[in-house]
């Protein structure tokens, strides 16, 4: 799917900032910086990857800056970032 640079989220405590960029590398590349990386790093990456794949994004560079967001927040921010990157509004369509 064609994507452009987009982001969603904030750097507030309990939130996550997700930035999506087109990538030449196959698959998803996720760079995560998190205040809870030790305990939840893998889980956060999995939630982002699952959300993106579920929306048809198989190739992209994702930069995520997490401030202790819960999974539901991460899914919401990832979804919003994809909607902005693709221009395809999953909530309306």
């Amino acid at each position, binding site marked *: 799917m064609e994507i452009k640079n987009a982001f969603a989220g904030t750097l507030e405590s309990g939130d996550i900032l997700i930035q999506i960029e087109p990538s030449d590398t196959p698959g998803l590349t996720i760079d995560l910086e998190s205040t809870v990386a030790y*305990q939840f790093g*893998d889980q956060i990456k999995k939630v982002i990857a699952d959300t993106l794949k579920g929306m048809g994004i198989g190739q992209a560079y994702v930069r995520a800056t997490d401030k202790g967001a*819960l999974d539901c927040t991460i899914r919401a921010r990832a979804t919003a970032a994809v909607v902005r990157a693709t221009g395809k509004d999953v909530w309306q369509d």
Partner: protein
Amino acid sequence: MKGYEERQKLIGRIADSFHKGVYHGGERKITVPRKESQATSEKVVSLEEAIRRCGLRDGMTISFHHHFRSGDKVLNLVMDKIAEMGFKDIRIAASSLNDVHTPLINHIRNGVVTHISTSGMRGELAKAVSHGLMDNPVVFRSHGARGSAVANGDLHIDVAFLGASSCDPMGNACGYSRSPNAKSICGSLGYALPDARYADKTVILTDDLVDYPNTPTSISEHDVDYVVVVDSVGDSSKIASGAIRDTKNPRDILLAKTACKVIVNSGYFRNGFSIQTGSGGASLAVVKYLRQSMIEQNVKASFALGGITSHMVKLHKEGLIDHLIDVQSFDRVAAESLRDDPKHKEVSANEYASPDEPGAATKFLDIVILSALEVDTNFNVNVLVGSDGIIRGAIGGHPDTAADSALSIVVCPLLRGRIPCIVDEVTTLITPGPTVDVVVTEYGVAVNPRRPDLAERLAAAGLRIVTLESLLERALHVIGTPAPLPFGDKVVGVVMNRNGEVMDVIRNIL
């Protein structure tokens, strides 16, 4: 004097039997006006001279207090001088360490400092230690345990370097100054008092050398060997802001209201009760709600202990609390109250919380409100090591007050961001579960099964009594299961309990 001369033989014989010398006269009077002779003293020397005259050697233990908290300037100043003079293998016995002590990292790397004991550690130094900076583990003690260890020799101090906001040339020192040149104020010197008393040598560093006699005195000249005048011993504004600011965080307010309801219905809320609270947002808010209950029910407290804050000073001034007992002033208002109010009493760490001091104030404490980084399902509490395995706090008086009080209440939210505060096992054991009576969270109140009486009273008052297991389940349901922390095999910290026993170890984090 003829008779006296006649008795000389007898005097000589008695002196022999006493193993003492014989008086030979020869006194000389000093006749200068005393104002002149008091202006100086052979005790007043430069820092370098004080270090030299104290006989500091490699391998010795030196101590510092943390009454200026993040504003402390004494430790870094003294350590830089000691490093400059070429000493190695120095052991630091601090009452606590703060983020301002980051320069210690270099002194450790250069072999100037090889051992540290403290109540806590924060910031870059704590992070570096957690990652294995030191060859020898840092020894952590509570304030009561440190006072006890200093007194009984477990923690022998060779030279104490103690900052004071005023000192006269003879060494009478205070945490405040009554002179017009006052530069700093920290209030109580409670954690410095055992050091001044038990260290082999004591050096006072002051930024206000005042006329003799500097009374009322906190540290007596009797315990002081040298006085060093410096530009500044600390930035008082960094102790805490002087203004009373109420938390607006709705979760803190809910926690505080719940904790207040626990206190009022605990059976200990009666005329003449005593209380200690911490300095966290929720803890301060408890005081606010408790004040209302005290006024409404006409209940007055005999004393408030601790860590005295401006909140407690306010209640004292309103007549709701008779005495303030202060081992450490948490803000400027408290420090000034200690200076000005005779019923605001300064106590040493030993008088505050030493386990082997029968009159320690904690032993007469009804209620203590405490915070926590983690509480586990056995009521064990951790206040030292973060859930990421990095040292980020201080033991303080937590285990002392929990153990000695009639009712210990730990107030903590279920989650901080994605980090659970209720866990199945604490990262580091600081306060043993049997000494913790109640845990207040925003999702209900857990009462130690050891206290069925208390659970019954609180339930009857309409409080939602829950188990820690159910709180843990609830937390994990929201956040998922945290991955185990990547600890290494090196011991970077040792936690001593109040009685000088090893209670837990902290391993390095990878």
